[in-house]
């Protein structure tokens, strides 16, 4: 475990040099929130639009960071032989993947914290104190599970294929999940099955003060299960070739 943590630390240090990461995970949701968060006065998901948009933007930034950061890097590092190189060290066999997920879990935090702070002090979202950590943790969980999907994509696809594949996944889960704008009708119905929707909806239900349906939480756990299975399969099948 010490080795895995050492690698995690090194990965985090790398991330500090990476401008792309900050643009996608922090700058994008912040800018969108500043542009739109206070302009719309309607309601969404039964709460003020500003509150909904705060949660959806926090989820968006975190989800996008978990997905974009890892898939491309893993694919690149697999191609360049860094994963092979690590297999020659005493790092445990799953150390690399565990470190990637730990890093993701850490990198989803800034966008969540920043957007929630913006919501409180710029968007005038006022909530009882206990609701903030509940919302933060829900959003964090709902987005970090995408780190596992990123592992699956990174192992399965070559670097030049990763970009389009991630982009498709990104649009599907961002739009169907209602991260950019709330969906209604048929698409809205399908969207309810996405983890991104589920994370946001748990947050707005908490704000609205209604009981959170168990289905939402179960949905998130099921998605985590699906992504972990995909990731494990991808890592296993490519193990010999890496």
């Amino acid at each position, binding site marked *: 475990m010490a080795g895995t943590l050492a690698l995690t630390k090194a990965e985090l*240090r790398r991330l500090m040099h990476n401008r792309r990461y900050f643009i996608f995970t922090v700058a994008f949701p912040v800018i969108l929130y500043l542009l739109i968060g206070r302009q719309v006065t309607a309601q969404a998901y039964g709460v003020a639009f500003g509150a909904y948009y705060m949660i959806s933007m926090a989820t968006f930034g975190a989800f996008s960071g978990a997905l974009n950061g890892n898939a491309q890097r893993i694919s690149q590092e697999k191609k*360049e032989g860094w994963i*092979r190189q690590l297999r*020659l060290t005493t790092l445990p066999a799953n150390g690399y993947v565990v470190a990637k997920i730990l890093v993701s879990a850490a990198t989803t935090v800034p966008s969540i914290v920043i957007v929630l702070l913006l919501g409180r002090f710029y968007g005038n979202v006022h909530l009882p104190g206990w609701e903030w950590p509940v919302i933060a943790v829900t959003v964090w969980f709902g987005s970090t599970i995408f780190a596992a999907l990123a592992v699956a994509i990174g192992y399965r696809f070559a670097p030049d294929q990763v970009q389009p594949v991630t982009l498709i996944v990104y649009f599907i889960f961002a739009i169907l999940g209602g991260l950019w704008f709330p969906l209604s009708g048929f698409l809205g119905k399908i969207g309810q099955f996405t983890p991104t929707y589920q994370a946001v909806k748990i947050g707005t239900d908490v704000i609205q003060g209604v009981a959170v349906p168990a289905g939402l939480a179960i949905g998130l756990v099921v998605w985590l299960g699906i992504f972990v299975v995909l990731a494990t399969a991808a890592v296993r099948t490519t193990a010999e070739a890496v």
Partner: protein
Amino acid sequence: MSQHETGYGASGSGGGDAEYGRYASGAEYGGSAIGSEHDYRGRTAIAVETGHGNGRGAPVVSFENVSKHYGGLRAVDGLTVELRHGETVALLGPNGAGKSTSLDMLLALRKPTSGQIRVFGDDPYHAVKSGRIGAMLQSGGLMPEVTVRELVELVTSLHPKPEPIETTLRRAGIAQFADQRVDRLSGGQTQRVRFALAICGKSELIVLDEPTAAMDVETRRLFWNSMKEEVAAGRTLLFATHYLEEADQAADRILVINRGRLLADGTPAEIKARAGAKRLSFRLDNIDEPFLLGLPGLVNLELRHDVVQIQSSDSDATLYAIFDAGYRPREIEVTSLGLEQAFLAITAEDDRANGHDTTSGNGAN
């Protein structure tokens, strides 16, 4: 002037080599250069005491009838070999001979189709994970976006018996660019960083796949000098190469493999001897060709006017037979053939024995 052939040792002299050779005090310069720069191992002493199967302690590595098949291709075919403590062993073969596949299996990156590999009596995976093997792969990548020092620190921190960072940086010759980013290095520099990762812990066995591939002559010399330090510290070294010169000068034991099979195993001198690797030349009047063709040890015969050139597996016996027959040849020269000719002879013999076209090369993959 014949000396300007030995001017080869003057690798650092830059342009105008032919001129240089003519005016330099030939033999002296060439001799010292070859002695100090090119005979990395001081092999004459070592060649006598090594050899194989002489029972010194348990094997560091053992391959027992190991095969690896990819579909119909036999990349490695029934390889059986043992490495012992303190040996420097070159794995020599053309591209596609199965060198990398063999090393990959030794390093637990691939599983043998059949057979068994033991490293320090354990399976390869555990040997790697306990830090007993330090390895450098041909295809080993580096983590981008970090500095060389950060990377070396990371890999060192993973090792159970780490060397001090500064020692590793110095031995690998990378101290002067330790603060540069890994993704901004030249090919040769990258190669040295990979090497640093192989020696950053006190591993007992060092495995290197084509270690000097991207290195220039000077870097290569530095590299083998630091390798010498590693071996002197009691480590066992196995390296794959297709540079025959390198195997000849750096290794005290050579394993020749071709199409996945072990063709020869011995000291560089033994390998050369096996292939009839002495060249005899002399002048002789009234040449009797059938007599020459019947000489003991003869592998090849060339005649030009009164000049006879013989490639022989036992040059002494060949010469004595000529004297015994009453001939008195003039200007006798006996020279060792390079490992290259020996290697070509061994692989060609193998290719012929297996009904392969020797002219089409061996590049199976």
